Each structure stands twice: as C-alpha cells, then as structure tokens.
C-alpha cells in the first residue's frame, strides 16, 4: 500500500506543483528494472545496472571463508529477474547512490 502525501487538506485546493512532485516521488519508489528482457532491449541505465549487479554476483563471497572471496554467487545474478529500485540500491549500495554510469574514458 502506497500513501501519497499531497500536502493539502480538504479545506484547501491542492498545489499542482506539490501534487506533481509527490507523484514523481511515489513513482520513483515504484521504479523497476526488468532483466528478463534481452540485453539489446535495455535502456542505457538499465544495462549499466545490469552489468553492475552481475559484477556484484560474480565477485561475491559465497561462504565465510576468506578464500571464497570473489568466487561469485550465482543466486545473486540478475539475469531473468525483475528488481525494484530499492532492491538495486540494497545490492549496489554506494555505487547506485553515486550514479550508475561512470565511464573512465568519458567523452571520447
């Protein structure tokens, strides 16, 4: 259940800007990343997140043993799954917060 605080009471008319901002915020929390689709159909942001999520999975530590660090965890692979934005943030942490597209080569 999603509640949207529109910032007004029954006694006053809603501020259209507030309504739009609140709606966008609510939609943002509903943002999903569909990794069931072929890679070729993903937009640039989704593709970047896909590759970052795969990196998290491929380099994950599967057991408590230090020697298993980086061996990878197939259960974390995003392939064939649908993620919400919050799930992506949970998986990527700061990488997502800092922006999903970092290209060392920049602009060519």
């Amino acid at each position: 259940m999603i509640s949207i605080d529109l910032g007004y009471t029954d006694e006053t008319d809603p501020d259209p800007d507030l309504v739009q901002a609140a709606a966008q915020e609510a939609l943002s929390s509903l943002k999903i990343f569909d990794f069931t689709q072929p890679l070729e159909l993903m937009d640039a942001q989704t593709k970047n997140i896909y590759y970052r999520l795969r990196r998290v999975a491929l380099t994950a530590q599967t057991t408590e043993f230090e020697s298993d660090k980086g061996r990878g965890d197939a259960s974390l692979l995003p392939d064939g799954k649908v993620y919400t934005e919050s799930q992506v943030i949970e998986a990527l942490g700061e990488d997502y917060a800092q922006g999903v597209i970092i290209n060392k080569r920049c602009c060519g």
Partner: protein
Amino acid sequence: MPDFLLDNVGLWLSKRPETSLNNGYTLNTDYLKALTTAPAFVVPTIEFTSDAGKPGNGHEFPTRQCPTYVGHPAFSFTDEIAVSYPGRLLLRALGGAVTTAQQGGTAAYKHSCVMLDSLVNRQLPSTTMIAQLGGASFRLDGMVVDGYRLSQNRADVPQYSVDLVGSGDFVSPQAIGTAQVETATAAGTIGTPGNATVIVTAAGMPGSPRTVSVAVAGADTAATWAGKVRTQLALDPFVAYFFAISGASTSIVLTARYIAANDTTMNISLDNGTCTGITPAPTSANTTAGSFTLPATADILTCLDGNQTVISWTDTGGVQTLTGSGCAVRSSSIGVSNATKLNDRCPGDPTVTITDPLTALVTTPAYVSKMRHGARSANAQVVLTLDATIPDWFTYATNDVLTDVTFQYRGAIIASTFRYMLSLIMPKARITNISTGQDDGDATLTLDLTAFWDSATSTALKAEVINTETANYD
C-alpha cells in the same frame, strides 16, 4: 594431365555437430559450403613404424615398415566473420549445450553456450568436413575445434579463424551425390583373332580419351570377349583409378569413382582393332546420370560491419566501453585454445580400410576414437591509443577484476535493436600484461586479458550468436 588451381578447392562443413565422434554425415542437406582465405586441400597421412636403426639388422637402414595410425588431419579456416557456419563453429569451440532464444518476439534468435564442463566430459562436439580438389576427395569425420579466434584491425571487417583437427577417420572419395554410370554392350562373335579396341572417354580422367587394346580369340562370343574387356580395363591404371569396372555377360559397366556433375562426353567405344567380328558400338549408354549435390554456394550474404564492434567490460569504476567515437581501439582479438589431446590411442581403436583400385593392395591403419580437449585457455588483446590519462594501467596495476568482458562483432539490424552478431564474453577476467607500442606512428598500449574461471556461471568464456536461424543452430 589436368591440373587444378588451389583456389578451386571445395570445402563443406556439417551443419550440425556429429551425434558422436566419427559418426560422419552422409546427406547433402547435412552440409554447408565453406570458404577460406587460405585455401588448401587435404590428403590424409599414414604413420608407419620401421626397424630403422634397430640393432641386429647389421646396418642402420629399415627392412620393414608397418602402418599404424592415420595421422590427425588439420585444416584452418580464415575469413570474414559470418553468422552462418563460423557461428556454428564458434559454439562448437566452446562445446557446452546450446540454448536458442527468440529475441523480443522478433525474427532474431540468440544461440548461446558456455564452455563444456570438463568434469562431465572432455569430448568437444565434432564436425564432418569434406574437402575436394581433383582426385583429393575426402570426407573427414571427427573434426574438432582446436582453436578459435575473432579479431579486427581498426574498423576493417572483423575476421575469424578456426583450427580444426580430425581423428583420422575418413571416406575417400566422398560419396555424397550420384556417381555416373556408363554401360557398353558387346555384340558379335570374334572371327579373326587379334585385338579389340576399347576407347574410354571422360572429362576429368587423366589420359582421356584412353585407348585400351584387348586380346581376343577366335570364336569368342560377345559375353566371352566382354569379360576380357572388363578384365583388361581393370588393369589399366588410367581407367581403373577413375572407374570401378563391373558387369556381367555382354555388359561392360563403368561407374565413376568420383562424384561429379553429369559428363555428357563420358563414353565407352567398342570396335575391332586387329580382330574381326565385333559389331562396332561407338556410343555407350548413360545408365545413371552423375549428380553433384553438395551445396554450390556458401551462406555468407550477411556481412558484419567493422564500425559496429563493441568492446566493453565492467570494473570497479563501472561499465567501460572501449569502442566509440574516441577511435581509441586500433585492434582487438579474443580466442580460445582447446589444446586438443592428440594421439590418444588405445587398444580397440577402429580402423579404416584403404584399397588401391588398381593393385587391390589393402592397408588398415587405425584412427582414434577420442579427441578430448586438454588444458584450455581463453585470452584477448586490445590495442588502444595512448591518452592523456591511463585508467587501464591502473586497472591492471591494482589487479582489479573485470567482469563481463565482451567482444561483440555486429552487423545489420535484424529487427528492433537486434543485430546479426557474434560475441565472446569472459564473465571474469584480468588484465595480465600491458605493453607499449605504436600503430602507424601513434603511441599505443596493448592490453593482454586472460579469462578467469567464474564459479557463478561455471565457465571462463561464453559465446553468443544472433541471426535468424530458429532452431538446430549448434
């Protein structure tokens, strides 16, 4: 004597991997014609043992020689990348089970596989290959991919090269199609003894038209002297290597040993030489028309575009795309080496029977029943122009792991955003060396990448092909 241009060699590869090693395909519809920029033809080699140098012979020279095994035939294809047979060989190079998936409901299909799990099986999928140039006509069974490489220089059309190596099993001449059969019918009883004159004509036969004299005796009936003609033709080296001679009674039947299109000039002429009594028969009957049914053209119509190549990986910094408007990539290559285990010989290995058509001498060398891969490796190389910063050197120097290292060679759009494509992907890799160099005077860095084993996807390399083949692409 006819001679042949090397470029005229005919090469065919089986559409699908053999159902088991050395189980060669026998139908024309099982094959695709293949091209290569480095033409060659194949003649199997036989390995022998001898007693050369053995103490006790009184000298160092051999006195006996015994055939043992057929040597491993090898053939390399090098050409522009295409999404037909080069893609199939790419999938066979890795050897895992191929998955085919329609892409976004369009006409595009993606065929992908990972490397064969060596803990389950080390026998890579095998290919049947036919090579034909003149008399060198061989069907080679049990050819496995020993190495496969995709490469590109600047934005030239991407290239592939594949090295095939075989078990030694072969069939010669290759027998797909219909062999032409000519039949002459003898008539007349010999009056004056002497020689009959038989003239055999065929477009590809050395020495054609070949005149053979056959000694006949007085009162020989047609069936009797026809038998003498058959015997004499079977002893003639020109005729016997080109035709199998058969027939009964008055029939003299010549069956071409090599499959070829129908030759309207092929003929057996019977006439009196110094003898009398033969009813001249200048024209033989074309009992069975020859028919060459292997595909005549190679499916290479879909070209890949050099400017569409994508090389990318993900490192700690995120997704890095090396190709693009910066024109930094001067060349690239990625490949797999299967280190096929040769001479994997065992008691009980099967044999191939080789019979000389003229002398009837027979040998039965063996061939191997296993062509397992050895210690495989997958490597890549990218040559980049030197920039004002060198992020890749830091990636290398800090031993950062790369994930999803992708070399994607692409062509025209099939539908939506799906393009014809061949790609090799290292799920996990590292830059193992960086060296300096130059490309046409421009300073460059050469990055050597090595694929690492990825436990999550159970492979070190993944292959993908996108085309419009809906099924049975493996």
